[in-house]
């Protein structure tokens, strides 16, 4: 602790470049691992349709499900047009 403080005073902050390596690796892998197979996305889409169909009628043809990446994160973005809400005990308030 004390040594660190003295080091800092003398402008010799320990570089700790391993933390830079770890962070860069984390980001690179986030992007690498996004490259999933088309079958993976199709299966995911089918499962989503199954679940959502319990609650509403959706336009499966125009439905879009994609993984998008920004600089530091990955998001699953879905655009699902709804044709009609289902009436039923679940939907009633």
């Amino acid at each position, binding site marked *: 602790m004390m040594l660190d403080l003295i080091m800092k005073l003398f402008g010799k902050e*320990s570089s700790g470049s391993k933390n830079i390596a770890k962070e860069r690796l984390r980001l690179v*892998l986030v992007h*690498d691992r996004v490259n999933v197979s088309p079958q993976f996305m199709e299966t995911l889409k089918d499962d989503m349709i199954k679940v959502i169909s319990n609650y509403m009628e959706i336009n499966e043809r125009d439905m879009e499900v994609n993984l998008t990446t920004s600089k530091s994160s990955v998001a699953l973005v879905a655009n699902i047009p709804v044709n009609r809400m289902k009436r039923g005990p679940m939907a009633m308030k």
Partner: protein
Amino acid sequence: MGEVLVITSGKGGVGKTTTAANLGTGFALTGKKVALIDADIGLRNLDVVMGLENRIVYDLVDVVEGNCRLKQALIRDKRYETLYLLPAAQTRDKNAVNPEQMKKLCEELARDFDYVIIDCPAGIEQGFRNAIAGATEAIIVTTPEVSAVRDADRIIGLLESEGKSNPKLIINRIRPHMVKKGDMMDIDDIIDILAIDLLGVIPEDEYIVISTNRGEPAVTHPSSLASTAYKNIVRRLCGENVPLMSMEVRTSFLSKVKKFLKL
């Protein structure tokens, strides 16, 4: 039936061939019957690391194409009775062999040998697919660098999609001094990222260069760091529970004083 281990990494230059040579020789030192296969067709290397380059008559492609019998192509290492090498072809390319043929070859060898160790070429193309085809277990070699760990991650994914799950990891060329300074990723960092089982850690060791110069795998040395690390890995693969060797950096009083004065 023997085990068929493939040594792979994705990235080149991380120590696949050195690892294959040392594990093979290490097993042979314990009396196990071992066949080393150099699957890097076109860029034959395992033969020189083993010091067997002058004894090659037939190679892997000759066996696959039926130009000779398997027994004729296997070079017996005269120093270790139970160690054999099947060299890669030097004048052909990776497409001279296909995964089906490799599978058949590995099965045939596994009937006669306790361990079949395949030295996989770098990359993820045909050569990689050939090398892993017949393997029952995969060992991934990486170094504590961003590029090597990234490629290792890719390889883990590819192995999984080929139905080879639970590969084991060897972290090669760790430099304890740099780890201590926080300038090199340590074992935990890498395991954390790759999330696979650790098989062993090989510290950076100048003796590896010397042993490769001589064509005698480092594992035959009685006490070098890398030698001990490889022997430990061999014991772990044989089912023994061997703790990781200490990477403790000893700092002498003098070096502490020097460091202090350099502030």
